């Protein structure tokens, strides 16, 4: 049932307003900014919970003449986004001030950091509630623009380079998807059936898809998948991803892998997925891109020495699973894709935050220089291990469930070759992460690292609680969802049904 509500507007307005406040007070203290961020995001989280509870009762929240539209999928994304945003903001409370303390322009940097973090979440929430295909492009581009200066936060050679690459690749990529959306629009306005209806609405896409020429749909979808795929980090548009993830501050890396690339997957779920069942070539095209991402991502991850680059390449590989599931257009596929999306958000954020803690204490991200940290940092070690085993797809953790749903969905759709590639990638992922965990936490650290640890009595004692709590919460979430997947099932089911409803044209 459609219900008029202010909640979908508030969910993006609150973080945006808080972001503007943070950006306006350039000389305010670190405390001021962190309070604004944590409170603003806690409020956003509360609203997301309210939207979720409404949506689970079978309602769809609309506002502004159907231009804003929150269904199960929006609720899922917003819940994940605001939850991750809040944890990242808490993690940043101590982490970010320490890392900019020596700079003369530290207050301005903090203002930029928190302002853009909040603006990003505002834009991301907007992306997830908009019902217009052109606003989908506009807000998606805005999420990129908001995160570029977060990637270049340290403002030094390497981070500037990473930010530049990120900006160029994603901005140009997204222009292709704009062209795809415009093609669909241009085909649709000519249709006599669509006279008097708003052809820009996502909820009308399936009706449009059945009427416009096949060549328009196929070309438009190829452009959409390329554009949104660049945002999601699919191979061959992934070149920005490892650089940006590695050079950004640790909480931002967690956000990039956790949420930013998922927005690209969300856009694919809202557009290409709707067309996929009517046009089988789209399913095959997505499956090929996704399989390529899985294999290339994990092979590159295996040869990395930098922890964050390894995690970033693994994200390329994992986003392949998500997109492959979403591209199938079947209940099982979409369900598996969204389940994996949620799980990967939690697990990868956990891993990036742990990697940030390791680098914070030892001063290095190179696995060859690390070792023996299990005694120095037991909590981080447990968190990283849970994350590593989870992302490898081992029971009883959450990713095990979503990966097997996806294997079943892909095989069920008749793409046996893709299922084989997915299983093979899963095995390589286990090997990659178990090896990484062994190298970091056992063995002997290099002399430089030992010196760094000895200096100022390094170890977990140096980690502030504000950094440990988000990691522990994420680790608990990983285990709990793995043991009781029923907790998240109603929301996933509702999100999947929402996509299928649009797909069948039941409006």
């Amino acid at each position, binding site marked *: 049932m459609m219900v008029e509500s202010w909640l979908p507007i508030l969910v993006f307005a609150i973080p945006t307003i808080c972001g503007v406040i943070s950006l306006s007070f350039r000389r305010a203290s670190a405390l001021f900014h962190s309070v604004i961020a944590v409170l603003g995001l806690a409020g956003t989280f509360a609203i997301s919970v309210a939207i979720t509870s409404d949506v689970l009762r079978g309602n769809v929240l609309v506002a502004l003449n159907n231009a804003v539209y929150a269904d199960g999928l929006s609720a899922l994304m917003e819940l994940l986004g605001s939850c991750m945003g809040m944890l990242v903001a808490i993690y940043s409370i101590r982490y970010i001030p320490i890392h900019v303390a020596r700079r003369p322009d530290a207050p301005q940097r903090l203002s930029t950091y928190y302002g853009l973090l909040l603006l990003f979440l505002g834009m991301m929430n907007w992306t997830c509630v908009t019902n217009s295909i052109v*606003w989908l492009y506009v807000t998606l581009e805005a999420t990129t*623009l908001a995160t570029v200066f977060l990637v270049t936060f340290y403002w030094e050679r390497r981070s500037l380079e990473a930010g*530049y690459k990120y900006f160029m690749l994603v901005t140009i990529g997204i222009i292709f998807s704009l062209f795809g959306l415009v093609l669909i629009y241009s085909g649709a306005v000519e249709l006599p059936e669509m006279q008097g209806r708003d052809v820009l609405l996502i909820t009308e896409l399936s009706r449009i898809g059945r009427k416009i020429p096949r060549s328009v749909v196929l070309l438009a979808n190829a452009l959409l998948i390329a554009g949104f795929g660049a945002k999601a980090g699919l191979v061959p548009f992934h070149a920005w991803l490892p650089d940006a993830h590695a050079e950004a501050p640790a909480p931002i890396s967690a956000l990039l892998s956790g949420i930013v690339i998922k927005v690209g997957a969300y856009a694919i779920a809202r557009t290409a997925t709707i067309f996929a069942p009517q046009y089988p070539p789209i399913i095959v095209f997505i499956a090929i891109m996704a399989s390529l991402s899985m294999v290339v991502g994990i092979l590159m991850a295996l040869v990395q020495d930098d922890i964050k680059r390894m995690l970033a390449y693994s994200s390329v590989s994992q986003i392949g699973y998500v997109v492959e599931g979403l591209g199938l257009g079947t209940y099982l596929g979409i369900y598996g894709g969204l389940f994996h999306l949620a799980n990967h958000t939690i697990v990868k954020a956990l891993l990036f935050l742990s990697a940030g803690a390791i680098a914070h204490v030892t001063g290095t991200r190179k696995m060859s220089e690390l070792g023996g940290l299990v005694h120095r940092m037991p909590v981080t070690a447990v968190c990283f291990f849970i994350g590593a085993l989870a992302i490898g797809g081992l029971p009883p953790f959450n990713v095990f469930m979503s990966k097997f749903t996806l294997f079943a969905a892909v095989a069920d759709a008749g793409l046996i070759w893709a299922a084989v590639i997915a299983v093979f990638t899963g095995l390589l992922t286990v090997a990659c992460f178990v090896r990484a965990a062994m190298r970091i936490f056992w063995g002997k650290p290099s002399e430089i690292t030992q010196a760094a640890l000895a200096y100022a009595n390094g170890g977990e004692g140096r980690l502030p609680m504000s950094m440990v709590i988000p990691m522990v919460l994420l680790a608990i979430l990983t285990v709990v969802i793995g043991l009781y997947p029923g907790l998240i099932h109603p929301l996933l089911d509702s999100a999947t049904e929402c996509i299928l409803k649009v797909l069948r044209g039941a409006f």
Partner: protein
Amino acid sequence: MPLAIQQSDILALLMIAHLLASLVAAELRNLRSAVWALIIQSFLLTCIIASFAFVWNNYTLLIWAAITLATKVVLIPSILLYHLRVTSLVTELRPLIGLRASIIFGSILVIVFYWLLRTYIYFVAPTQAALVEPARSNLAIAFCVFSLGVYVLITRRDVVKVVIGLQLLENGAHLALITLAPTLPPTTKLGIWTNVVVAAYMLIKLAEGIYKTLGVVDTLTLSELKR
């Protein structure tokens, strides 16, 4: 017989001038002149959009034209010219391709693309609206400008030139957008244009950061993060 200049003649003239200005903006080695060529290119884009408003009797297109004038002709070039004044850069860093070769290659690129696209427009924009003049030629021009932008992005090392390339690419994309979807509601246009301005500003900010930390604005030096 009175001398009759037809609407379509003016449009054709504007389109050709637009394409030539794009080529000049891409090729000029003096950065300030290149920015001025970009200003002329964007102004011609504004004129094309405005004349479409009269050809199609769709006067909301005049809002598009006004926004284009404000952002593409005034705002973005001002940011670029300000950047040039602050950094006192004059000549472009030597591109990957020589001047003569670049002019020849650029011209061939434009001519071949124009011919290919105008003939086979159905493959890139398979809708009815795209097949009718002046939309057909216009789309071909739009894709030419777009591909010229991509070419500039690939071969140029200077960040200012990269911004110009990005602007060409976006101008091409927006010309295609206007041709295919002239009836888009004004709010969406505003959203798209805000993004364009913010993106240009951010790229210049990044360029300034790169200039301050590395002393050059050479995108080729940005290659530390390999593998």
